[in-house]
Protein backbone atom coordinates (compact mmCIF):
# COMPACT_ATOMS: atom_id res chain seq x y z
CA UNK A 1 0.00 0.00 0.00
CA UNK A 2 1.49 3.28 -1.10
CA UNK A 3 0.28 6.79 -0.37
CA UNK A 4 -0.77 8.87 -3.36
CA UNK A 5 1.14 12.03 -4.00
CA UNK A 6 -0.79 15.10 -2.98
CA UNK A 7 0.99 17.07 -5.65
CA UNK A 8 -0.35 14.74 -8.30
CA UNK A 9 -3.86 14.98 -6.91
CA UNK A 10 -3.76 18.75 -6.86
CA UNK A 11 -2.30 18.90 -10.33
CA UNK A 12 -5.04 16.60 -11.61
CA UNK A 13 -7.57 18.92 -10.09
CA UNK A 14 -6.04 21.95 -11.75
CA UNK A 15 -6.10 20.23 -15.13
CA UNK A 16 -9.73 19.29 -14.74
CA UNK A 17 -10.74 22.76 -13.64
CA UNK A 18 -9.02 24.17 -16.68
CA UNK A 19 -11.01 21.71 -18.72
CA UNK A 20 -14.25 22.76 -17.06
CA UNK A 21 -13.50 26.31 -17.95
CA UNK A 22 -13.37 25.30 -21.60
CA UNK A 23 -17.09 24.66 -21.49
CA UNK A 24 -17.82 28.09 -20.21
CA UNK A 25 -15.24 29.64 -22.46
CA UNK A 26 -16.76 28.13 -25.56
CA UNK A 27 -20.23 29.25 -24.58
CA UNK A 28 -19.01 32.79 -24.00
CA UNK A 29 -16.98 32.79 -27.16
CA UNK A 30 -19.89 31.49 -29.18
CA UNK A 31 -22.18 34.23 -27.94
CA UNK A 32 -19.65 36.90 -28.78
CA UNK A 33 -18.88 35.52 -32.22
CA UNK A 34 -22.57 35.04 -32.89
CA UNK A 35 -23.50 38.58 -32.06
CA UNK A 36 -20.44 40.02 -33.73
CA UNK A 37 -20.82 38.13 -36.98
CA UNK A 38 -24.45 39.07 -37.24
CA UNK A 39 -23.89 42.71 -36.44
CA UNK A 40 -20.99 43.02 -38.81
CA UNK A 41 -22.84 41.37 -41.64
CA UNK A 42 -25.94 43.38 -40.98
CA UNK A 43 -24.19 46.69 -40.71
CA UNK A 44 -24.34 47.82 -44.34
CA UNK A 45 -28.02 47.02 -44.46
CA UNK A 46 -29.03 48.59 -41.18
CA UNK A 47 -31.12 51.60 -41.96
CA UNK A 48 -34.68 52.57 -41.22
CA UNK A 49 -35.49 51.57 -44.78
CA UNK A 50 -35.21 47.95 -43.78
CA UNK A 51 -38.29 48.37 -41.70
CA UNK A 52 -40.36 49.88 -44.45
CA UNK A 53 -39.37 48.08 -47.60
CA UNK A 54 -41.17 45.10 -48.88
CA UNK A 55 -39.40 41.86 -49.52
CA UNK A 56 -38.08 40.90 -52.92
CA UNK A 57 -35.65 38.41 -54.37
CA UNK A 58 -34.02 40.65 -56.93
CA UNK A 59 -32.27 43.53 -55.30
CA UNK A 60 -30.80 43.27 -51.82
CA UNK A 61 -30.56 46.99 -51.52
CA UNK A 62 -34.29 47.46 -51.66
CA UNK A 63 -35.35 44.46 -49.66
CA UNK A 64 -36.98 44.98 -46.33
CA UNK A 65 -39.21 43.50 -43.67
CA UNK A 66 -42.25 45.75 -43.58
CA UNK A 67 -44.79 43.07 -44.35
CA UNK A 68 -43.02 40.58 -42.16
CA UNK A 69 -43.00 42.81 -39.12
CA UNK A 70 -46.69 43.46 -39.38
CA UNK A 71 -47.32 39.80 -40.04
CA UNK A 72 -45.39 38.83 -36.93
CA UNK A 73 -47.24 41.36 -34.85
CA UNK A 74 -50.54 39.99 -36.07
CA UNK A 75 -49.64 36.37 -35.49
CA UNK A 76 -48.00 36.90 -32.12
CA UNK A 77 -50.80 39.17 -30.97
CA UNK A 78 -53.45 36.60 -31.79
CA UNK A 79 -51.36 33.83 -30.31
CA UNK A 80 -51.10 35.68 -27.01
CA UNK A 81 -54.81 36.43 -27.12
CA UNK A 82 -55.58 32.73 -27.38
CA UNK A 83 -52.85 31.14 -25.36
CA UNK A 84 -52.59 33.39 -22.33
CA UNK A 85 -56.15 33.06 -20.98
CA UNK A 86 -56.22 29.35 -21.74
CA UNK A 87 -52.78 28.70 -20.38
CA UNK A 88 -53.16 30.71 -17.21
CA UNK A 89 -56.55 29.16 -16.56
CA UNK A 90 -55.13 25.70 -17.04
CA UNK A 91 -52.18 26.54 -14.82
CA UNK A 92 -54.47 27.79 -12.08
CA UNK A 93 -56.58 24.66 -12.32
CA UNK A 94 -53.63 22.31 -12.18
CA UNK A 95 -52.00 24.11 -9.31
CA UNK A 96 -55.05 24.98 -7.19
CA UNK A 97 -57.95 22.73 -7.98
CA UNK A 98 -56.57 19.51 -9.31
CA UNK A 99 -56.44 16.68 -6.84
CA UNK A 100 -53.99 13.86 -6.82
CA UNK A 101 -56.22 11.59 -8.85
CA UNK A 102 -55.56 9.86 -12.09
CA UNK A 103 -57.14 12.53 -14.27
CA UNK A 104 -54.98 15.27 -12.81
CA UNK A 105 -51.85 13.26 -13.30
CA UNK A 106 -52.73 12.57 -16.90
CA UNK A 107 -53.41 16.24 -17.51
CA UNK A 108 -50.13 17.28 -15.96
CA UNK A 109 -48.26 14.65 -17.92
CA UNK A 110 -49.96 15.78 -21.12
CA UNK A 111 -48.83 19.35 -20.52
CA UNK A 112 -45.28 18.34 -19.73
CA UNK A 113 -45.04 16.12 -22.76
CA UNK A 114 -46.53 18.71 -25.06
CA UNK A 115 -43.74 21.03 -24.06
CA UNK A 116 -41.23 18.59 -25.47
CA UNK A 117 -42.78 18.08 -28.89
CA UNK A 118 -40.60 19.41 -31.72
CA UNK A 119 -41.94 22.60 -33.26
CA UNK A 120 -42.06 21.18 -36.75
CA UNK A 121 -44.57 18.59 -35.57
CA UNK A 122 -46.84 21.40 -34.44
CA UNK A 123 -46.44 22.81 -37.90
CA UNK A 124 -47.58 19.57 -39.46
CA UNK A 125 -50.52 19.51 -37.12
CA UNK A 126 -51.44 23.04 -38.06
CA UNK A 127 -51.16 22.13 -41.68
CA UNK A 128 -53.38 19.11 -41.42
CA UNK A 129 -55.98 20.51 -39.05
CA UNK A 130 -56.27 24.24 -39.60
CA UNK A 131 -55.05 24.78 -43.12
CA UNK A 132 -56.47 21.67 -44.72
CA UNK A 133 -59.17 20.12 -42.57
CA UNK A 134 -60.83 23.33 -41.47
CA UNK A 135 -60.00 24.84 -44.81
CA UNK A 136 -58.61 28.05 -43.40
CA UNK A 137 -55.73 28.15 -45.76
CA UNK A 138 -52.35 29.63 -44.90
CA UNK A 139 -53.63 32.72 -43.19
CA UNK A 140 -52.72 34.63 -40.06
CA UNK A 141 -55.39 32.88 -38.03
CA UNK A 142 -54.05 29.46 -38.91
CA UNK A 143 -50.59 30.56 -37.93
CA UNK A 144 -51.83 31.94 -34.65
CA UNK A 145 -53.78 28.79 -33.81
CA UNK A 146 -50.75 26.64 -34.58
CA UNK A 147 -48.48 28.75 -32.43
CA UNK A 148 -51.09 28.76 -29.67
CA UNK A 149 -50.81 25.01 -29.38
CA UNK A 150 -47.05 25.25 -29.26
CA UNK A 151 -46.92 28.01 -26.68
CA UNK A 152 -49.75 26.79 -24.46
CA UNK A 153 -47.73 24.25 -22.43
CA UNK A 154 -45.10 26.84 -21.59
CA UNK A 155 -47.68 29.26 -20.33
CA UNK A 156 -49.17 26.54 -18.15
CA UNK A 157 -45.85 25.50 -16.68
CA UNK A 158 -44.69 29.03 -15.96
CA UNK A 159 -48.06 29.87 -14.44
CA UNK A 160 -47.79 26.86 -12.16
CA UNK A 161 -44.34 27.92 -11.08
CA UNK A 162 -45.53 31.47 -10.45
CA UNK A 163 -48.39 30.26 -8.27
CA UNK A 164 -46.15 27.88 -6.42
CA UNK A 165 -43.83 30.74 -5.59
CA UNK A 166 -46.56 32.64 -3.76
CA UNK A 167 -45.83 32.32 -0.05
CA UNK A 168 -48.28 30.06 1.67
CA UNK A 169 -48.87 32.71 4.32
CA UNK A 170 -51.02 34.60 1.82
CA UNK A 171 -53.06 31.54 1.13
CA UNK A 172 -53.41 30.69 4.79
CA UNK A 173 -54.45 34.21 5.66
CA UNK A 174 -57.21 34.18 3.06
CA UNK A 175 -58.41 30.81 4.28
CA UNK A 176 -58.47 31.99 7.85
CA UNK A 177 -60.54 35.01 6.92
CA UNK A 178 -63.18 32.77 5.43
CA UNK A 179 -62.85 33.66 1.79
CA UNK A 180 -63.89 31.25 -0.91
CA UNK A 181 -61.24 29.56 -2.93
CA UNK A 182 -61.91 31.55 -6.04
CA UNK A 183 -61.99 34.79 -4.07
CA UNK A 184 -58.64 33.97 -2.62
CA UNK A 185 -57.24 33.12 -5.99
CA UNK A 186 -58.63 36.16 -7.73
CA UNK A 187 -57.83 38.69 -5.03
CA UNK A 188 -54.75 37.42 -3.32
CA UNK A 189 -52.92 34.67 -5.09
CA UNK A 190 -53.04 35.84 -8.68
CA UNK A 191 -52.02 39.41 -7.86
CA UNK A 192 -49.20 38.04 -5.75
CA UNK A 193 -48.15 35.85 -8.61
CA UNK A 194 -48.40 38.64 -11.17
CA UNK A 195 -44.66 39.08 -11.73
CA UNK A 196 -44.40 35.39 -12.48
CA UNK A 197 -47.45 35.53 -14.72
CA UNK A 198 -45.92 38.40 -16.59
CA UNK A 199 -42.85 36.28 -17.13
CA UNK A 200 -45.13 33.62 -18.55
CA UNK A 201 -46.61 36.10 -20.97
CA UNK A 202 -43.22 37.37 -22.05
CA UNK A 203 -41.93 33.88 -22.55
CA UNK A 204 -44.93 33.07 -24.69
CA UNK A 205 -44.48 36.19 -26.78
CA UNK A 206 -40.77 35.57 -27.25
CA UNK A 207 -41.31 31.98 -28.30
CA UNK A 208 -44.07 32.87 -30.68
CA UNK A 209 -41.96 35.58 -32.20
CA UNK A 210 -38.96 33.41 -32.80
CA UNK A 211 -40.55 30.21 -34.04
CA UNK A 212 -39.90 29.63 -37.69
CA UNK A 213 -40.54 25.98 -38.48
CA UNK A 214 -44.25 25.78 -37.69
CA UNK A 215 -45.08 28.86 -39.76
CA UNK A 216 -42.92 27.61 -42.54
CA UNK A 217 -44.76 24.34 -42.61
CA UNK A 218 -48.24 25.78 -42.62
CA UNK A 219 -47.40 27.89 -45.60
CA UNK A 220 -46.31 31.35 -44.64
CA UNK A 221 -45.27 33.19 -47.73
CA UNK A 222 -41.78 34.04 -48.75
CA UNK A 223 -42.48 37.12 -50.68
CA UNK A 224 -45.21 39.48 -49.87
CA UNK A 225 -45.72 42.83 -51.40
CA UNK A 226 -48.55 43.94 -49.24
CA UNK A 227 -49.15 44.40 -45.56
CA UNK A 228 -51.23 41.65 -44.00
CA UNK A 229 -54.69 43.08 -43.46
CA UNK A 230 -56.14 40.91 -40.78
CA UNK A 231 -56.56 37.43 -39.35
CA UNK A 232 -57.80 36.14 -42.66
CA UNK A 233 -54.89 37.50 -44.63
CA UNK A 234 -52.06 35.46 -46.06
CA UNK A 235 -49.00 36.51 -44.25
CA UNK A 236 -45.30 36.40 -43.84
CA UNK A 237 -43.57 36.41 -40.51
CA UNK A 238 -40.23 37.90 -39.57
CA UNK A 239 -38.31 34.70 -38.89
CA UNK A 240 -39.71 33.07 -41.99
CA UNK A 241 -38.60 35.93 -44.18
CA UNK A 242 -35.17 35.83 -42.62
CA UNK A 243 -35.03 32.17 -43.53
CA UNK A 244 -36.09 32.99 -47.07
CA UNK A 245 -33.18 35.39 -47.42
CA UNK A 246 -30.76 32.75 -46.16
CA UNK A 247 -31.61 30.54 -49.09
CA UNK A 248 -30.48 33.19 -51.52
CA UNK A 249 -26.77 33.62 -52.23
CA UNK A 250 -25.03 34.58 -49.02
CA UNK A 251 -22.70 37.10 -50.50
CA UNK A 252 -25.45 39.39 -51.60
CA UNK A 253 -28.24 38.57 -49.24
CA UNK A 254 -26.45 37.72 -46.05
CA UNK A 255 -26.60 41.30 -44.94
CA UNK A 256 -30.34 41.48 -45.43
CA UNK A 257 -30.86 38.30 -43.44
CA UNK A 258 -28.60 39.54 -40.68
CA UNK A 259 -30.42 42.84 -40.59
CA UNK A 260 -33.63 40.92 -40.11
CA UNK A 261 -32.09 39.15 -37.15
CA UNK A 262 -31.15 42.49 -35.67
CA UNK A 263 -34.75 43.60 -36.02
CA UNK A 264 -35.95 40.36 -34.45
CA UNK A 265 -33.51 40.56 -31.56
CA UNK A 266 -34.41 44.20 -31.15
CA UNK A 267 -38.07 43.29 -30.81
CA UNK A 268 -37.29 40.53 -28.34
CA UNK A 269 -35.06 42.79 -26.34
CA UNK A 270 -37.75 45.47 -26.17
CA UNK A 271 -40.38 43.07 -24.92
CA UNK A 272 -38.04 41.76 -22.26
CA UNK A 273 -37.11 45.27 -21.24
CA UNK A 274 -40.74 46.30 -20.95
CA UNK A 275 -41.40 43.17 -18.95
CA UNK A 276 -38.60 43.90 -16.52
CA UNK A 277 -39.81 47.43 -16.01
CA UNK A 278 -43.41 46.40 -15.48
CA UNK A 279 -42.37 43.57 -13.22
CA UNK A 280 -40.31 45.88 -11.05
CA UNK A 281 -43.24 48.24 -10.84
CA UNK A 282 -45.52 45.39 -9.83
CA UNK A 283 -43.13 44.14 -7.22
CA UNK A 284 -42.66 47.55 -5.74
CA UNK A 285 -46.39 47.98 -5.36
CA UNK A 286 -46.56 45.12 -2.99
CA UNK A 287 -45.58 44.94 0.62
Amino acid at each position, binding site marked *: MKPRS*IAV*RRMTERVYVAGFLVGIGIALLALIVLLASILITAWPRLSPAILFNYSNARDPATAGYAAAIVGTLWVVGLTLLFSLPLGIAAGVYLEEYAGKGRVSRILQAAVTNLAGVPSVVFGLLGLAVFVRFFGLGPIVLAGALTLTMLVFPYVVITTQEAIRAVPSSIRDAALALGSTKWQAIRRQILPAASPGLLTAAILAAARAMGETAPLLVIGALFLQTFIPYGPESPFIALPVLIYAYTILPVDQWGGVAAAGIVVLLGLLFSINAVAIIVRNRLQRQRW
Partner: protein
Amino acid sequence: MRLLVKERKERETASETVEDLVVRPSVAVEVEYPAIESRDLSVAYGRKPAIREISLRIPRNQTTAIIGPSGCGKSTYLRAINRMNDTIPTARTTGQLFVDGEDVYGPDVDPVLLRRKVGLIFQKPNPFPKTVYKNIAFGVNIHFRTTPEEMDTIVESALRQANLWDEVKDRLQESALGLSGGQQQRLCIARALAIQPEALLMDEPCSALDPVATARIEDLMFELKKEMAIVIVTHNMQQAARVADYTAFMYLGRLVEFNRTRELFERPQADLTENYITGRFG
Protein backbone atom coordinates in the same frame (compact mmCIF):
# COMPACT_ATOMS: atom_id res chain seq x y z
CA MET B 1 -0.59 26.46 37.36
CA ARG B 2 -3.94 27.86 38.14
CA LEU B 3 -5.47 30.88 36.54
CA LEU B 4 -8.39 32.03 38.52
CA VAL B 5 -11.48 33.72 37.27
CA LYS B 6 -12.49 36.97 38.85
CA GLU B 7 -13.36 36.71 42.48
CA ARG B 8 -16.80 35.53 43.23
CA LYS B 9 -17.73 38.64 45.15
CA GLU B 10 -16.95 40.90 42.22
CA ARG B 11 -19.37 39.12 39.93
CA GLU B 12 -22.69 40.72 39.17
CA THR B 13 -25.86 39.21 37.80
CA ALA B 14 -26.67 38.01 34.31
CA SER B 15 -26.71 41.45 32.71
CA GLU B 16 -22.98 41.42 32.33
CA THR B 17 -21.46 40.37 29.06
CA VAL B 18 -19.35 37.31 28.91
CA GLU B 19 -16.34 39.49 28.42
CA ASP B 20 -16.83 40.85 31.88
CA LEU B 21 -17.29 37.46 33.33
CA VAL B 22 -14.40 35.74 31.71
CA VAL B 23 -11.20 37.64 32.10
CA ARG B 24 -9.30 34.54 31.27
CA PRO B 25 -10.54 31.02 30.82
CA SER B 26 -9.99 28.81 33.74
CA VAL B 27 -7.65 26.12 32.51
CA ALA B 28 -6.97 24.02 35.50
CA VAL B 29 -4.77 21.38 33.98
CA GLU B 30 -1.58 21.64 32.03
CA VAL B 31 -1.57 19.35 29.05
CA GLU B 32 1.88 18.32 27.94
CA TYR B 33 2.39 17.03 24.41
CA PRO B 34 -1.14 17.83 23.27
CA ALA B 35 -2.50 16.07 20.23
CA ILE B 36 -4.20 19.26 19.16
CA GLU B 37 -3.51 22.74 20.39
CA SER B 38 -5.21 25.96 19.43
CA ARG B 39 -3.79 29.37 20.26
CA ASP B 40 -6.10 32.35 20.09
CA LEU B 41 -8.14 30.67 17.44
CA SER B 42 -11.00 32.83 16.21
CA VAL B 43 -13.52 32.20 13.47
CA ALA B 44 -15.97 34.73 12.11
CA TYR B 45 -18.69 34.27 9.48
CA GLY B 46 -18.55 37.53 7.61
CA ARG B 47 -18.75 40.13 10.36
CA LYS B 48 -20.24 37.90 13.00
CA PRO B 49 -17.69 36.25 15.26
CA ALA B 50 -18.45 32.64 16.09
CA ILE B 51 -15.54 31.73 18.32
CA ARG B 52 -13.05 34.05 19.91
CA GLU B 53 -9.45 33.50 20.84
CA ILE B 54 -9.77 29.96 21.99
CA SER B 55 -6.58 28.57 23.42
CA LEU B 56 -6.97 24.97 24.32
CA ARG B 57 -4.82 21.87 24.45
CA ILE B 58 -6.40 18.54 23.67
CA PRO B 59 -4.61 15.61 25.25
CA ARG B 60 -3.58 12.46 23.38
CA ASN B 61 -5.31 9.15 23.88
CA GLN B 62 -8.08 10.72 25.90
CA THR B 63 -11.60 11.74 25.20
CA THR B 64 -12.24 15.44 25.52
CA ALA B 65 -15.78 16.75 25.56
CA ILE B 66 -16.80 20.26 24.60
CA ILE B 67 -20.05 21.35 26.17
CA GLY B 68 -22.01 24.54 26.21
CA PRO B 69 -25.40 26.01 25.33
CA SER B 70 -26.66 26.09 21.74
CA GLY B 71 -24.85 28.56 19.58
CA CYS B 72 -21.80 28.85 21.81
CA GLY B 73 -19.53 27.87 18.97
CA LYS B 74 -18.63 24.30 19.90
CA SER B 75 -19.29 22.96 16.42
CA THR B 76 -17.45 25.84 14.84
CA TYR B 77 -14.42 25.11 16.98
CA LEU B 78 -14.59 21.45 16.15
CA ARG B 79 -14.80 22.10 12.44
CA ALA B 80 -11.95 24.55 12.69
CA ILE B 81 -9.70 21.72 13.85
CA ASN B 82 -9.85 19.93 10.53
CA ARG B 83 -10.38 23.08 8.51
CA MET B 84 -13.88 22.17 7.44
CA ASN B 85 -14.80 25.82 7.86
CA ASP B 86 -12.74 26.41 4.74
CA THR B 87 -15.64 25.05 2.74
CA ILE B 88 -17.80 27.93 3.90
CA PRO B 89 -17.01 30.95 1.74
CA THR B 90 -17.70 33.62 4.37
CA ALA B 91 -15.67 32.03 7.13
CA ARG B 92 -12.53 33.81 8.31
CA THR B 93 -10.13 32.09 10.66
CA THR B 94 -7.34 33.70 12.61
CA GLY B 95 -4.96 32.34 15.18
CA GLN B 96 -3.06 29.11 15.19
CA LEU B 97 -3.96 25.49 15.39
CA PHE B 98 -1.34 22.84 15.91
CA VAL B 99 -1.86 19.23 15.08
CA ASP B 100 1.12 17.12 15.92
CA GLY B 101 3.15 20.25 16.34
CA GLU B 102 2.41 21.74 12.93
CA ASP B 103 0.31 24.87 12.46
CA VAL B 104 -2.36 23.66 10.09
CA TYR B 105 -3.40 27.17 9.19
CA GLY B 106 0.10 27.90 8.03
CA PRO B 107 0.88 28.86 4.46
CA ASP B 108 1.97 25.56 2.95
CA VAL B 109 -0.49 23.21 4.55
CA ASP B 110 -2.97 21.36 2.38
CA PRO B 111 -6.19 20.76 4.28
CA VAL B 112 -6.66 17.54 2.38
CA LEU B 113 -3.77 15.94 4.20
CA LEU B 114 -4.91 17.34 7.53
CA ARG B 115 -8.32 15.76 7.12
CA ARG B 116 -6.75 12.38 6.65
CA LYS B 117 -5.12 12.70 10.02
CA VAL B 118 -8.09 14.22 11.77
CA GLY B 119 -11.44 12.63 11.03
CA LEU B 120 -14.86 14.17 11.55
CA ILE B 121 -18.10 12.39 12.38
CA PHE B 122 -21.24 14.39 11.73
CA GLN B 123 -24.39 14.78 13.75
CA LYS B 124 -26.57 13.08 11.20
CA PRO B 125 -25.04 9.91 9.77
CA ASN B 126 -24.11 10.63 6.16
CA PRO B 127 -23.06 7.43 4.43
CA PHE B 128 -22.61 7.68 0.70
CA PRO B 129 -25.29 6.06 -1.47
CA LYS B 130 -22.88 3.25 -2.28
CA THR B 131 -22.24 -0.23 -0.93
CA VAL B 132 -20.90 -0.67 2.58
CA TYR B 133 -17.60 -1.79 1.11
CA LYS B 134 -17.31 1.18 -1.22
CA ASN B 135 -18.11 3.63 1.56
CA ILE B 136 -15.02 2.54 3.41
CA ALA B 137 -12.91 2.09 0.31
CA PHE B 138 -13.65 5.64 -0.79
CA GLY B 139 -11.43 7.33 1.76
CA VAL B 140 -8.68 4.77 1.40
CA ASN B 141 -8.67 5.02 -2.37
CA ILE B 142 -8.27 8.73 -2.27
CA HIS B 143 -5.16 8.68 -0.19
CA PHE B 144 -3.56 5.35 -1.01
CA ARG B 145 -2.95 2.93 -3.77
CA THR B 146 -3.80 -0.61 -2.68
CA THR B 147 -4.21 -4.06 -4.08
CA PRO B 148 -7.65 -5.62 -3.82
CA GLU B 149 -6.45 -7.94 -1.08
CA GLU B 150 -5.05 -5.07 0.91
CA MET B 151 -8.32 -3.21 0.54
CA ASP B 152 -10.31 -6.20 1.77
CA THR B 153 -8.10 -6.34 4.82
CA ILE B 154 -8.45 -2.65 5.49
CA VAL B 155 -12.22 -2.73 5.14
CA GLU B 156 -12.55 -5.63 7.52
CA SER B 157 -10.20 -4.13 10.01
CA ALA B 158 -11.96 -0.78 9.99
CA LEU B 159 -15.35 -2.42 10.43
CA ARG B 160 -14.04 -4.49 13.31
CA GLN B 161 -12.56 -1.42 14.89
CA ALA B 162 -15.94 0.25 14.70
CA ASN B 163 -17.67 -2.80 16.17
CA LEU B 164 -19.68 -3.20 13.02
CA TRP B 165 -18.05 -6.15 11.31
CA ASP B 166 -20.27 -8.90 12.64
CA GLU B 167 -23.40 -7.08 11.61
CA VAL B 168 -22.40 -6.29 8.05
CA LYS B 169 -19.91 -8.93 7.05
CA ASP B 170 -22.53 -10.61 4.89
CA ARG B 171 -23.84 -7.36 3.49
CA LEU B 172 -20.69 -5.69 2.28
CA GLN B 173 -21.97 -5.37 -1.25
CA GLU B 174 -25.35 -4.03 -0.26
CA SER B 175 -26.25 -0.38 -0.11
CA ALA B 176 -25.16 1.42 3.02
CA LEU B 177 -28.49 3.21 3.09
CA GLY B 178 -30.16 -0.02 4.13
CA LEU B 179 -28.48 0.02 7.52
CA SER B 180 -30.11 1.33 10.66
CA GLY B 181 -29.24 4.77 11.99
CA GLY B 182 -26.83 3.46 14.58
CA GLN B 183 -25.19 1.16 12.07
CA GLN B 184 -24.84 3.99 9.59
CA GLN B 185 -23.11 6.12 12.16
CA ARG B 186 -20.72 3.31 13.02
CA LEU B 187 -20.13 2.92 9.31
CA CYS B 188 -19.17 6.58 9.14
CA ILE B 189 -16.80 5.98 12.01
CA ALA B 190 -15.34 2.97 10.25
CA ARG B 191 -14.97 5.07 7.13
CA ALA B 192 -12.91 7.58 9.07
CA LEU B 193 -10.91 4.93 10.89
CA ALA B 194 -9.92 3.23 7.68
CA ILE B 195 -7.50 6.00 6.81
CA GLN B 196 -5.77 5.75 10.18
CA PRO B 197 -6.41 9.11 11.77
CA GLU B 198 -4.55 10.43 14.76
CA ALA B 199 -7.56 12.17 16.15
CA LEU B 200 -11.28 11.77 15.75
CA LEU B 201 -13.69 14.67 16.01
CA MET B 202 -17.32 13.92 16.72
CA ASP B 203 -20.02 16.53 16.40
CA GLU B 204 -22.96 15.39 18.56
CA PRO B 205 -22.66 11.95 17.00
CA CYS B 206 -25.46 10.38 19.00
CA SER B 207 -28.10 13.08 18.91
CA ALA B 208 -29.95 11.42 16.04
CA LEU B 209 -29.73 7.94 17.53
CA ASP B 210 -31.74 5.91 20.01
CA PRO B 211 -30.29 5.10 23.45
CA VAL B 212 -29.13 1.62 22.52
CA ALA B 213 -27.23 2.86 19.49
CA THR B 214 -25.88 5.70 21.59
CA ALA B 215 -24.57 3.28 24.18
CA ARG B 216 -22.81 1.25 21.51
CA ILE B 217 -21.04 4.27 20.19
CA GLU B 218 -20.05 5.42 23.64
CA ASP B 219 -18.56 1.98 24.31
CA LEU B 220 -16.74 2.29 21.04
CA MET B 221 -15.17 5.53 22.17
CA PHE B 222 -13.53 3.81 25.10
CA GLU B 223 -11.86 1.43 22.71
CA LEU B 224 -10.84 4.00 20.17
CA LYS B 225 -9.18 6.43 22.51
CA LYS B 226 -6.45 3.91 23.12
CA GLU B 227 -5.20 4.78 19.67
CA MET B 228 -6.19 8.35 19.10
CA ALA B 229 -7.41 11.53 20.70
CA ILE B 230 -11.15 11.95 20.59
CA VAL B 231 -12.94 15.27 20.78
CA ILE B 232 -16.68 15.10 21.17
CA VAL B 233 -19.07 18.01 21.06
CA THR B 234 -22.20 17.27 23.00
CA HIS B 235 -25.12 19.14 24.45
CA ASN B 236 -25.78 16.22 26.73
CA MET B 237 -23.92 16.69 29.98
CA GLN B 238 -24.60 13.18 31.16
CA GLN B 239 -22.92 11.90 28.06
CA ALA B 240 -19.91 14.09 28.72
CA ALA B 241 -19.75 12.80 32.24
CA ARG B 242 -19.93 9.22 30.97
CA VAL B 243 -17.38 9.21 28.20
CA ALA B 244 -15.01 12.14 28.58
CA ASP B 245 -11.77 12.29 30.49
CA TYR B 246 -11.53 16.03 30.04
CA THR B 247 -14.22 18.59 29.43
CA ALA B 248 -14.15 22.11 28.05
CA PHE B 249 -17.04 24.47 28.63
CA MET B 250 -17.70 27.16 26.07
CA TYR B 251 -20.05 30.10 26.21
CA LEU B 252 -20.84 32.71 23.54
CA GLY B 253 -17.81 31.78 21.51
CA ARG B 254 -15.28 31.79 24.31
CA LEU B 255 -13.63 29.10 26.34
CA VAL B 256 -14.76 29.42 29.92
CA GLU B 257 -13.27 26.45 31.65
CA PHE B 258 -11.25 23.33 30.95
CA ASN B 259 -10.57 20.61 33.47
CA ARG B 260 -10.74 16.92 34.09
CA THR B 261 -14.38 15.99 33.69
CA ARG B 262 -14.89 14.96 37.27
CA GLU B 263 -13.39 18.16 38.58
CA LEU B 264 -15.35 20.33 36.21
CA PHE B 265 -18.65 18.80 37.16
CA GLU B 266 -18.05 18.47 40.86
CA ARG B 267 -15.97 21.55 41.53
CA PRO B 268 -16.49 24.06 38.74
CA GLN B 269 -14.19 27.04 39.00
CA ALA B 270 -16.23 29.57 37.09
CA ASP B 271 -19.70 30.61 38.11
CA LEU B 272 -20.83 30.43 34.53
CA THR B 273 -19.83 26.82 34.46
CA GLU B 274 -21.64 26.09 37.64
CA ASN B 275 -24.78 27.83 36.40
CA TYR B 276 -24.74 25.85 33.19
CA ILE B 277 -24.17 22.53 34.86
CA THR B 278 -26.86 23.08 37.40
CA GLY B 279 -29.26 24.01 34.69
CA ARG B 280 -29.77 27.64 35.39
CA PHE B 281 -29.46 28.38 31.73
CA GLY B 282 -28.72 26.68 28.46
